């Protein structure tokens, strides 16, 4: 009944890279946010796996704080998207190239 720690780390790294690729290459603001969410989720998996590895609850507490930060971030980001979409009628990140418009 054993699980290699490296496999969990590989899972977290793979998820993080998938999220980073999504955040960097997609142009829709929603898809960028989804990429950020996937990255935060991968960080949570890494924290919980480390908590398991060293049998230390602090990692799980950190994963809870990551979740809190993700919730706050998504609320503000969605409000920003709604705000910016009212002005430009678009959610394409390439459209937002005017500082004062």
């Amino acid at each position, binding site marked *: 009944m054993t699980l290699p*720690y490296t496999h*969990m780390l590989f899972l977290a790294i793979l*998820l993080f890279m998938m999220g980073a690729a999504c955040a960097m290459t997609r142009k829709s603001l*929603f898809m960028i946010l989804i990429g950020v969410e996937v990255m935060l989720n991968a960080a949570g998996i890494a924290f919980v796996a480390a908590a398991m590895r060293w049998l230390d*609850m602090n990692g799980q507490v950190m994963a809870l704080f990551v979740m809190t930060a993700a919730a706050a971030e998504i609320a503000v980001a969605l409000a920003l998207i709604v705000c910016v979409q009212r002005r430009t009628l678009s959610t394409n990140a390439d459209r937002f190239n005017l500082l004062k418009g």
Partner: protein
Amino acid sequence: MTLFNIIFYIAAAIVICATGLAITRQSTVHAVCYLVISFMGTAVIFYILGAPLLAALEVIIYAGGIMVLFLFVVMMVKDQQDPRDKPSRIKKWLPALILAGISAVMAGMLVFADPGNRLRPPAVTGTPQEFGRILFQEYWFPVEIASLLLLAALIGALYLGRRTGHPEDTP
């Protein structure tokens, strides 16, 4: 190969497949639906790794709260298809590839610096009682900071989302 391993690898495969499908969809609604599946799989992984409270919170907060909020906003906002919204060219992938290379090297270093650590997962390590005791005894200050962060996010979201009198702001 025990039941724990089998469940872990199945959940990991589901998470990776669902995330891969989510980040490649054109439709945002489909992407969010796949992401919900991915978060459910993550909750299973959390439970296997001895964090039952975090597994429940993952389902309630991530899959239940954040993704539903996301879905509401996606359906509320008119997302017109833009002809300029083409997939990126290979030149734009270059920084991503460089970053992926650096991450892969760092991941390899992490893995080889700590090889062969096989965990022995007990059924449940972190009971909610233990979790809450550590959270509110040792981390009471970060909890207060987190509550301030959530309050600031709430006020900020309300401020940004309000309707102003400008005609250009009305949809």
